[in-house]
């Protein structure tokens, strides 16, 4: 951006006014032939890159169990105190699992700390940015809404392995 000039500093061409208008029109004309970047949401949807931090989700393994071991680190690190975890015991080899895992999406600030701190790569930021709820209760996402199949999260998991 050029620095804005004060009126008394304008040179003669600028004072004439018309050349400046022509300049502006030229810019408009140039942009008319550039590719269109506006998306017709919701008919056309934005597919974010893998670095995008959408709503946090839990990774569900192929056998249907959650990767999460309910260690509670995400809940501890969360600066907005959005996450609540209640652990319990299972018969599986990883003896601990989250009986309850709730993220209050009204509190969540999408900082991604939970993903960064997770020792199991069990909570990751997804590409999901469409978050609508009608009341406070609906904004608390339980395991039913949080669990996402590992196949659908390949992009992000690969990104994490590369850059985390």
């Amino acid at each position, binding site marked *: 951006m050029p620095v804005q000039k004060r009126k008394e500093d304008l040179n003669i061409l600028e004072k004439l006014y018309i050349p400046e208008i022509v300049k502006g029109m030229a810019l408009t004309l140039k942009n008319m032939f550039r590719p269109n970047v506006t998306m017709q949401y919701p008919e056309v949807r934005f597919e974010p890159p893998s670095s995008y931090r959408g709503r946090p989700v839990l990774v569900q393994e192929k056998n249907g169990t959650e990767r999460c*071991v*309910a*260690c*509670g*680190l995400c*809940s*501890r690190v969360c600066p907005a*105190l959005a996450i*609540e975890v209640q*652990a*319990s*015991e299972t018969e599986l080899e*990883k*003896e*601990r699992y989250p009986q309850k895992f*709730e993220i*209050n999406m009204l509190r969540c600030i999408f900082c991604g700390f939970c993903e960064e701190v997770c*020792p*199991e790569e069990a909570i990751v930021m997804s590409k999901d940015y469409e978050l609508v709820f009608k009341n*406070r209760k609906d904004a*608390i996402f339980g395991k039913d809404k949080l669990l996402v199949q590992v196949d659908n999260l390949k992009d992000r998991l690969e990104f994490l392995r590369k850059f985390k």
Partner: protein
Amino acid sequence: MPMLTVDGKQIEFKQGQTVIEAARAAGIDIPHFCWHPSLSVSGNCRVCLVEIEKMPKLAISCSTYAMDGMVVYTKSEKTLQARSAVMEFILINHPLDCPICDEAGECKLQEYAYAHGSGESHFEEIKVRKEKRVQLGPNIKFDGDRCIMCSRCIRFSDEIAKQNQLTFIKRGDKVTITTFPGESFDNPYTLNTTDICPVGALTNQDFRFKSRVWEMSKTNSVCVGCSRGCNTEVWVRNNQILRLTPRQNNDVNSYWMCDNGRLNTFKNVNAENRINGTFIRKEGELEKVSWEEALKVAAKSLKDYKSGEIAFIGSAFTTCEDNFALVKFAKSLGVVNIDFVNHTVQGDQDDILIREDKTPNTLGAELSGVRSGSNGLSVEGMMKAIKEGKIKALYVMEDDVASLNEEYEKILSKLELLIVHSANENKTTTLADIVFPASTYAEKNGTFVNFQGRVQRIRPAVATEEMDRALDGMKMSRWDKFGTKFDRWMQGLKYDSKPSWKIFTMLSTYLGGKTKYEMAEDVFIDLTHSVDSFKGLDYDTIGEQGVLLKIKQTVTV
């Protein structure tokens, strides 16, 4: 006094102290796993290695006696190197499962790995796997992988619990802990091993996976399981007690508490049968009414009886404050029949901690004046008088008198008026005409006097409806500090109950009394003015460790 030098600091010590003890007494902490102040020295973890001048090699400070003129370095280059190497050695076969392990957050190994570990290991071999989830005893699960073989639990069961039940088996890196064949790790003190276990190998079955330690608040309190009065910490999350742990007090319980006290003294606080609000019997059924109405009805019906027709039963389960308020209230009505019930289990006593007397405050109740002696009737006398129709109204505070025996239950049903303070529903409350909800020991301030005559403080750890954690100065976890009423983790149940002294104070105003107690300490100060043994005490002087009372009269317990 002989002196030694630790890190350039001159320290006095007593002859016979080891280097680690002398340093600890002077406030210098030397890292240690297997050493414990009240257990014998085993010297197998090697983490307490220190450099001592004129000694050719590093020495373990836990088994090296301090000597006059000794010069010890706990932070020298050589010491740090050795410590880091020992940490690496201990971590060879220790699994990296802190996210799953319950000990995380209060784990000695975790802390020392941060403080003294090198952060990486030379060992690339596969870790030795051992048995997991072994049920060692009724309350304890053992995880062989996590064990670092410090032998603290073995020495504890040998030396403190005096029951040889645990031992090492196998050799080398396959060493593991087990019970002797056919034995179960079931002595009354087993859960102390979960406290002294420096890793997460021994876990409390009752608390396993319930909560992370950093999510809870902890409040200093006293166990109500027996008249020992072990000092405890009450761990609370979302207004629910999740566990009790012992707190060090060398004059009472050292570092320990019994399993019964740890597991069975807090469950009633969040039990289904808590009495929530005031109840009055209307047409044969107990009905919930407002405090105002209940107090009005209670005051009115007490007025209907002559002072000789009323009797009061106090309680050794509740605090000195509650008992003193009861005595004061009874005396304001002119009642002399005041007594309380002893709950003694003959023979259930050992020379470690457990006492026959299963109430925390027998001495306190007696000193507060709840036993009227020759002037009034004893509990047995009351029952006889009720049977004969001489006593028509009975006021029972926090004791389940009807459950003592079937005859009492029958006798109590003959009463014209039975007013009860209770925290939980029981046989007495089902017979009562008026029920006031009493706060449990975890919900109020107060004092207990244990069997030694030591007065000790309890503090509220769980909030009732009238309390607010922040405003009432209760201990708060991070969740408590930042939660709002819209957060589910803040919506733990709060009961509508009050401490008994408060109920008496409220009731006395309906009877034109002048006792004005604002808080528990007011009652206690009044008690110190009335009873010589308590003279000059207040909550601050009692502090965290309690004060031994000067009791003149010999009390029979």
